């Protein structure tokens, strides 16, 4: 709903706008949807000029229809599947993370969401040599743990044998490079997050090939930490911002062929109800795939590293599939 302004398109002059406004036509939508003959009469403007302006406005602001075959071809050529580094998780996600889609990991505190995110970032950066953007809103990003995971992943490769224990305190070269490919941005409020995403969009559209390189994955840990302070109470702006954020994430994923991974919390309805994902029904439409992570033991008396991952929503696999993960 863009306001009509002089200079929006050639032929749209200031006096024209004043006349149109006097008759109640303020935005592009009003203009395009009104009967031009009528308008020409009421505003005493030339019909031809109005038609020309309308054509330009339509070309500028409307979307073009595309057919299914074209879309399919486009999808086949631009989507990639990123393996997550854990074969059982890959099985759950139908061979990996799809670019162009938003995937969500949810779980109770301590269930391993940050660990899985670190593992995925490590595997994409080391194995596929792609760049990863990690948006951290909880402060849970620990570089030493990431380094540990990278080391574990290169252990069975023969490069380990040929390592030169370099200058930087026992860091070895492929792991250093892998660490450099992971960019970490700490965002602690919704506005910071939105400006970080906007900056990313600007950078990608200008195709600044500097240290960022080909970005393939964006991890957001966690989305509920930035949105929760806005929901509840009597203000409804939280919902609007949440939808704005979801639109940003989805368009980023689709336009630049990125895989977007977000983590979410779980809440309970009452103190004994079952666990359900946080952020409510409106958010549940945003990710295309949802995985729930649970610890196997119910109490915290016994320590365990086993986690159960179950598929809660997916466009490709039957839901309810469960897989065990070891962290």
């Amino acid at each position, binding site marked *: *709903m*863009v*306001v009509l*302004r002089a200079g929006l398109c050639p032929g749209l002059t200031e006096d024209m706008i004043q006349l149109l406004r006097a008759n109640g036509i*303020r935005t592009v939508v009003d203009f395009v949807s009104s009967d031009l003959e009528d308008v020409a009469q009421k505003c005493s403007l030339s019909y031809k000029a109005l038609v020309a302006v309308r054509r330009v406005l339509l070309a500028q602001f409307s979307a073009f229809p595309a057919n299914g075959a074209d879309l399919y071809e486009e999808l086949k050529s631009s989507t990639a599947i990123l393996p997550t580094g854990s074969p059982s998780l890959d099985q759950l996600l139908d061979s990996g993370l799809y670019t162009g889609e938003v995937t969500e990991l949810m779980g*109770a*505190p*301590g269930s391993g969401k940050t*660990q899985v995110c*670190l593992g995925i970032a490590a595997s994409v950066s080391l194995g596929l040599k792609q760049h990863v953007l*990690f948006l951290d809103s*909880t*402060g*849970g990003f*620990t570089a*030493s*743990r*990431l380094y*540990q995971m990278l080391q574990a992943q290169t252990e069975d490769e023969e490069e380990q044998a040929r390592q030169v224990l370099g200058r*930087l*305190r026992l*860091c070895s070269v492929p792991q250093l490079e892998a*660490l*450099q490919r*992971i*960019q*970490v*941005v*700490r965002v*602690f*409020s919704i*506005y*910071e997050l*939105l*400006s970080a995403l*906007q*900056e990313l969009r600007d950078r990608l559209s*200008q195709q*600044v090939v500097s240290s960022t390189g080909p970005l393939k994955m964006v991890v957001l840990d966690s989305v509920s*930490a930035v949105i*929760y*302070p*806005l*929901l*509840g*109470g009597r*203000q409804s*702006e939280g919902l609007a*911002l949440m939808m*704005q954020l979801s639109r*940003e994430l989805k368009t980023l994923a689709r336009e630049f062929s990125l895989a977007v991974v977000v983590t979410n*919390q779980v809440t*309970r309805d009452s*103190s004994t109800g079952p666990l359900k994902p946080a952020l409510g029904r409106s958010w549940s439409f945003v990710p295309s795939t949802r995985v729930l992570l649970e610890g196997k033991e*119910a*109490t*915290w*008396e016994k*320590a365990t*590293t086993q986690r159960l991952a179950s598929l809660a929503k997916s466009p490709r696999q039957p839901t309810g599939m469960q897989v065990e993960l070891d962290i």
Partner: protein
Amino acid sequence: MQREVGTLPLAPALRARLAAAGFQTAQELLDTGPCGLSKEIGISREEALEALQVVRQECHGDAARTAGGSGATRRCTALELLEEEQTQGFIITFCSALDNILGGGVQLTKITEICGAPGVGKTQLCMQLAVDVQIPECFGGVAGEAVFIDTEGSFMVDRVVDIAAACVQHCHLIAEAQQEEDHQKALETFSLENILSHIYYFRCRDYIELLAQVYLLPEFLSEHSKVRLVVIDGIAFPFRHDFEDLSLRTRLLNGLAQQLIIIANDHTSAVVLTNQMTTRIGQSQSMLVPALGESWGHAATVRLIFHWDNSQRLATLYKSPSQKESTIAYHITSHGFRDVQPPAATHSAEGAEMNPRKRPRTEEEKQ
């Protein structure tokens, strides 16, 4: 410059009016100018000017970042973070088992939450940490100051005096054993009066005072830049009684958590919170779980749960981004928080090797 109007930090009423008038991107707003803006949406010229200033700040911030300037963003590569972490210190707790499961001690720039039943030792640990953060660097500490926010009134100064005296004595013994120059120099400033004068104490009686205190904390910390620890003893207490609107409570708690993590990050300090326990009645049995609900569990980065096992106190690391879950036993003596002594007094020589920053213990517990 293509920021959508909906993503800019403006007041909701203003945003609604802008959307109704048809503005979509920030660029359009800047082009219209304050007079045009105030006419279009019917607000006063001063308000229009303010709104445009906010928009301009955001857009310039974006442009500066895109052009490669660092600005105020907190972005870096994982490699830089790794180097930072390796040089960061920990706040030791004087209980080597606890330090080991935490990976060296309480980490800076992270929120640590301590949950436990009444009487298990949460406030004791907080007081111990407020003293330990001031240990000079040559002894393995971070040489910082502490802020103690008390909501329950359980801060006893005499107890802190005891703990501080034991800590100073410990350092003296090490200095004698090692006879190094900087040890002697550091000991001159590390005295009882000094320790007590560097613990900044605030008393908050209800949740409004607590929220106000936390919102004013960044200014305080910019003036006292040596603060490395913020303790909030009893974060559950003001929120647990007399709160009718539970969704408001969740919202306030989450806002508080966000503030705290911004403080922890910007001022490189550790934030330690203590929480109470509540009973959850399951199908067959009832369990003790930390209070304030599920969503609060995500606020803390590291979670420790203290509990009893027949008269032995145990600490379990329940949630941590870098360490495994494990349980250890600890002891509270007249000197403060300590390890449990094994029956055969084996000297922790391996302990010193595992954690090279830890100095060897030369004194055994003198009871």
